């Protein structure tokens, strides 16, 4: 578990510890935000979504190898 930088103010040290401990700072939420990022990415199965374009038809998908 990372320890707060000694140069931080006591308030920031406390906030940093909260994040590191994963202590719930908001009801029903994870920790003080150590998991919160400015961006995230992931994947979905191909069949999760199909898209119809008016006047064009369905967006095609690649054919998977057997």
């Amino acid at each position: 578990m990372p320890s707060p930088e000694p140069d931080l103010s006591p308030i920031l040290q406390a906030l940093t510890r909260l994040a590191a401990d994963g202590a719930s700072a908001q009801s029903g939420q994870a920790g003080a935000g150590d998991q919160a990022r400015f961006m995230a990415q992931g994947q979905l199965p191909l069949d999760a979504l199909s898209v119809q374009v008016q006047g064009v038809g369905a967006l095609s998908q690649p054919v998977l190898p057997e």
Partner: protein
Amino acid sequence: MRDTGEIAPAALALHWAEGALQGLLADVALALGLDEVQAHLHNLLIYGPGQFFKQHQDTEKHPGMVATLVLVWPSAHIGGALRVVHGVDEGRLQSQHLQVDSLRWCAFYADCQHEVLPVQEGWRVVLSFDLVVPARMRQGEAAAAPALVRALREQCFPEGEPSTQPWVFLLDHEYTEHGLRWQLLKGLDRARVAALRSAAQQLGLVMHLALAEIHESWTATLRYRGRWYQSEERPPWPRQLPVFVQACEAAGLPAVLLDQLLAQCLALRIARDREQATQTPTERNSAWRWRAQYTAELAQALAHASDRAKRWARLAGHVHMHAGLYPLLRLRQLLQAFPPQAADLPDLQGLRAAVLQALAQALQTPQPPADDHRLQGLEWTCRCKDCQAVIAWAEAPDGYSLTLPMAEARRSHVQEMLRRTGTPLSCDTVKQGSPYKLVIKKPAGLHAQRSAQRRQWQEDWEALGGG
């Protein structure tokens, strides 16, 4: 700003598999630190070869919009990476590595600057959604953390008496006037503020959200030399940054503000370098002196940051990556500006090794004889037929001048190319005959300049511990 095809949402019909959208939004909310998000389809963008979207920030198109979700269709393409920047941090969605058995998605907060790099081949097809925090959502009440309550009490009630000084906590993300709401806070801000708010309530303190506008100003007296400006004449931060930061620290400026200041300085340095990287060699070289000085000052000032090792590593890595702005053969003073405690950082060691290698290579290359007048190491900005003739002559060892009978437009083009490249060549127009002649000469004293340069390389190599 952008070069793409676009299909409006009214022309699109989406059919989600059962539970797929709910699962996706739950994953996105969790990753971004939100309780719940709703998605509004914004459009479908199609990027063909060469098409792109320049760096920009999304506008808040709906009340409660906090983020953007893009879903990349599995169409084959190369290039077209999505680059997302938040402060000094950066992330990428490399969709060209698309697995054909899945759809790739990427979500990011709406205040992040982002761009889509040009597609090289194929078609990049993307569904874009606006992510909104539902109006019914409110920040939950959290139990106040005892350590935080104690720290806040020490800050706001020193020696038991209420302080008359307000305490300010700067948020990580940017907010608009409409978006600055407790329930719409983003990322780390959200949980930190909830924790602070609970602690403040327990102490009977009142917390407010406020927009801070930071105005930067400096004299706009740009030095005019020829037709281009010396864009680095003014530092992007207070003059003599290390002294300023030291004074701030001595005056009791809270560490968090100092950290914010230094993080901003680093971000400004990187942003200004990104601008300069697109300039002509002449413009970049004209700003070298200030760029080197201010970057060295920044390296020194970062010693006062609480996360100094991370910041130094970022700066060293940035310098290493931008050889066009920071030529390896000229980095002795910058390397020496990093304080000794930064010396063991791998990024700085890598930069130092690269500089030493470049210096060693330069010194091992035999110096051309005195009657060799070739110009080397120039970054030519045009290679059209006329310019190619000049380049071939400039890179040949002969010392004679070059005479080019040319009409005015061609003469101007060649002269402009030489100016943009920043060559030491001199040009004259001989107004005799038709067309007039452009006469280009190589500089005198080239051999002496090379000798002086080698002596400097030798000194730098020894000063940096080479050998």
